[in-house]
């Protein structure tokens, strides 16, 4: 059974989006308006377990997290490449399977390089 999919199929998603946005905005407005408001200089400071705060949180953090993010971008793009292949997997047959094995082999070679470089090592 071949079915046509039109852009109008996505319309119910916008109904859901409207519903969710409405719920969130109403809740936010209500909670902002009915709670008490008491401010003081000490209270408005960032919480650091009762010790006077040193500077703010706009500080550099470990580069490991950045490397993880870069790796994610690389590998996630590879994963996205596999989706169309997986849908057509049966019609592509052995040729498609072997080609994807080659692709995954390259991917794993890159992954092995990353591990040997110690990018995923935490101490």
């Amino acid at each position: 059974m071949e079915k046509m999919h039109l852009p109008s199929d996505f319309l119910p998603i916008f109904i859901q989006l409207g519903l969710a946005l409405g719920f969130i905005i109403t809740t936010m407005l209500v909670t902002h308006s009915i709670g008490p408001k008491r401010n003081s200089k000490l209270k408005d400071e960032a919480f650091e377990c009762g010790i006077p705060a040193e500077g703010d949180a706009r500080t550099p953090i470990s580069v490991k997290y950045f490397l993880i993010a870069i790796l994610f971008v690389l590998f996630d793009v590879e994963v996205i490449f596999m989706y169309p292949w997986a849908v057509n997997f049966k019609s592509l047959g052995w040729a498609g399977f072997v080609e994807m094995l080659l692709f995954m082999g390259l991917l794993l070679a890159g992954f092995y390089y990353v591990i040997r470089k110690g990018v995923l090592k935490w101490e």
Partner: protein
Amino acid sequence: MDTASWIIKALIIVGVFAVTLLIATYSTLAERKIAGFMQDRLGPDRAGPFGVFQPLADAVKMFFKEDFIPAQANKWLFIAGPCLSMLTALMTSAVIPFGDTIRYEEQTIAVQGVELNVGILYVFGIVSLGVYGLMIGGWASNNKFSLLGAVRAASQNISYEIALGLSIIAIIMSAGSLSLRDIVNQQHGFAWNIFYQPVGFIIFVTCAFAECNRTPFDLPECETELVGGYHTEYSSMKLGFYLFSEYINMFISSLVVSTLYLGGFNYPGMDWVYAKLTALAGDTTGHNLATLIGFLALFFKGLFGVFFFMWVRWTVPRFRFDQLMDLGWKALFPLAILNIFFTGAGEMLGYHGFTWIIVGIMTILAATNAVKAPPRKMYPADV
């Protein structure tokens, strides 16, 4: 589609929305009751019989608390963080097939918000957006604990997303479709995917735990190190949104797991029930009743999933951060690739359950390791 079917469609969406919110509300009570049960205490029992009004009391309290915004925070981003978290949690339920079809005056309408041909991609996309809510909220708080919690949350979520995506690919390969309804229909009766994809199931569930920031992967809100994690500075309903979105995510991910691996609205003996019902109550009513039973079956699976999340929380201790990253990258990622390889080879050779080979190899490896391991010392020695 005409007006009547549009109205039914809108009713289904509103109903699904309401049910999601209700389940999330009562999950908070269930969590505390189950925690009480597992720790041999009562749990909340003051508000109403068995504490059934506790979630309402909590909600009212949340609303009447002070909505506090630190002086140093970026005000709009601070508000946007929890809103975004909540929005992504609420959007996913649209594509989940809750039941078969409803017949109404010569029309057949699917019990599903939207019948997308790229349903699983939609879920995957919205789930990836969820990390922005945590990251924006944690960064905007301008608090070191929040920032650390947010960075941890972000790196954990993106690490497990790769294995999550790869485990879905094995399902798509055997189903040949991205539509969740197609995937469910192929598991008709008791031909559930879990029997053909045991490894994919384990990878997917593990990643779902990590994506929901639940124990044993709740390092972003690790209270012994980070106070409250990314929501340290939050109060009132903004904190409520963060907690609430976690419960919604739990329910939705249980539903997605049920849809992909546990047969969705299919249950053993459904053809027999269908035949009996249509014989008893006529074609239309019988069909609708069978749909209702299927819906209840999916619902039961989803609720069991939520219970499983809570069960694990009080059973498995929290990981260390490097262990968490090692599990995601060095264990689940290669395992998912291996799973794809075995699924592909199995499909090509015509054997569906080829991935059981991985389970067999793993069991043998674990057994040999257990035999080779030095005997564990027991204290006191005579036990």
